[in-house]
């Protein structure tokens, strides 16, 4: 029974069939901590497939977003059933939109995808000052710091945040990945970030690579 529910959950998530996903998740939630754990693992595995489909150009942003929303609902349901809190924990990632930038769509897509993939996310929100980024790195010692920026006029906030980390001797604590419409690979090199991510899936994979290294 449990195996069937786990399989149904993963399959239905990849079919974006929210009703079937939640039916399976409710069944697993009633099956105790082991059922919940296997449900969470099924979500993580399905999201890995979602990410591959997105990177291969088979799926689009809408599908990435919607599958992430379904996954979030499943994790909200199953999370409290887990005996040791959340399932897989790949490490802490702190993320925020840089100072002056109040946009959060790209950041939120990343937060949702990375969290569902097993990272513990510290979401610093929007309009985050260099000092706040540095404070978060000092406090959480994350695997990675994500700096998001949609607006060209705010891209200087990326540079300032990195300079602040250097000034506070925190630059080596966390790797830095930047992403957002205003940014490019070239800009990442120029400001001394460790990586540029054109999308949430790539960003998560880059951090996973750092985490495993």
């Amino acid at each position: 029974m449990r195996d069937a529910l786990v399989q149904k959950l993963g399959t239905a998530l990849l079919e974006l069939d929210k009703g079937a996903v939640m039916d399976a998740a409710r069944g697993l939630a009633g099956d105790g901590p082991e059922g919940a754990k296997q449900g969470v693992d099924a979500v993580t595995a399905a999201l890995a497939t979602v990410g591959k489909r997105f990177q291969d150009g088979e799926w689009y942003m809408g599908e990435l977003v919607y599958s992430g929303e379904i996954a979030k609902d499943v994790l909200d349901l199953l999370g409290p059933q887990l005996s040791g809190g959340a399932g897989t924990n790949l490490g802490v990632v702190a993320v925020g939109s840089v100072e002056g930038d109040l946009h959060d769509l790209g950041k939120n897509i990343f937060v949702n995808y990375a969290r569902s993939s097993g990272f513990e996310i510290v979401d610093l929100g929007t309009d985050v000052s260099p000092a706040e980024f540095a404070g978060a790195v000092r406090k959480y010692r994350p695997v990675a710091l994500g700096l998001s920026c949609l607006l060209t006029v705010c891209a200087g906030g990326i540079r300032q945040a990195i300079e602040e980390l250097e000034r506070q001797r925190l630059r080596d604590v966390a790797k830095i990945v930047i992403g957002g419409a205003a940014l490019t690979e070239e800009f990442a090199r120029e400001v001394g970030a460790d990586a540029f991510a054109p999308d949430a899936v790539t960003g998560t994979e880059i951090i996973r690579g750092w985490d495993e290294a």
Partner: protein
Amino acid sequence: MDFEQRFLAAMNHEEPDRVPVMGLIMDPATVNQILHRRGVDFPRMLRRPVLRGAVRRLLNANWYWNRMYYGNFAGALEGAIELGFDANWTIYASMQLEPDPESPIGLVWHDVFGRVWEMNSDDRGNMSVNYTRALCATEDLWEAWVAAKAPLFDRLIANATAFHRRLAREYGDRILPIGYAAPGIFENCWQAIGFVNFTKLVYEKPEFVKRVVAFHTDLYLRYIEGVMASGVEVVLGGDDLGQKTGPLLRPELIEKFFGESYRRVADLVHRNGKKLVFHSCGRIYELLDRFVDWGFDGIITMEPTAGMELGRVRAQVGHDLVLIGNLDVSQLLVRGTREQIEDAVKRAIRDAARGGGYVLSAAHSHPFVDPERLRWMVEAAHTHGRYPIAA
């Protein structure tokens, strides 16, 4: 050839005397630099308690908003003429300042469609305004919003018509104004609801989404009629359908929900004897054939930082679409060297201009685009864009 003949020849896939150059000048920072003006720093004034109430009332007065907004675009056209452009886009907007505790200033712009726009200013007092979030996250909120704003939609169309007409009348003998009916149907649908919520509704409540699309399609057709009534020859429509790595939604879904709307827009423009150019940021190779199918005459932007290459686009669509844009605004037109800009112009002309059907322009506009580099771009086009284009 004059600027209008040159531009329209390119729009008809004929070879003009030289490649036309279109400006996307609109940001006060750029305009004020070209015209050696100082900006009026409204965000700074709004931060001062003693001025806040009066400035807010002023900015919310329809007549003042229109006057200020017209002044910005009159300056944009003056600037474009000064730099030697053949054409420049013109965009009308209408917003109201509303209290918002989430905003650093405590005030944000609300547009009539249901978006929040944050404002800011640079150290020279130039204001910039950017969409940040939605006001109508649920079905009920959206229904209530459009019901409450019904009178404003009529006013928007009347104001937009008057705005474009006046610009065409006052500047049309020196530059071709390209009337931009913006934002487009897709953006008006999702940005008032928010992308995450809109996406959920697409999958969970498609009938509601169809109702939203139908509402905005009817409104947009009236809006674009108003823009055409101003006398412009080329109409720009626009929706950012792409992001850095591909379309925002599966192309089949875009077709399902928006295809018929875009066909109706193109039909309306063509019945009026005008040309329709479509703006979309992002990596949109997968949508190009649909643009042809929907009846668009041209596309503008082809964002290089999203991997859009002029030569590849031309190879894909041939001369079924006029191509406009592609010069990088992330680095090249912000701090590129004159030689880099000249090389980019030569490359763009080589890749897209043979047989007509190409208009050189920046890929987009933003406040950091440097007017001097725009001037270099125009000069390079004048030097290297003479027809026949060398092999």
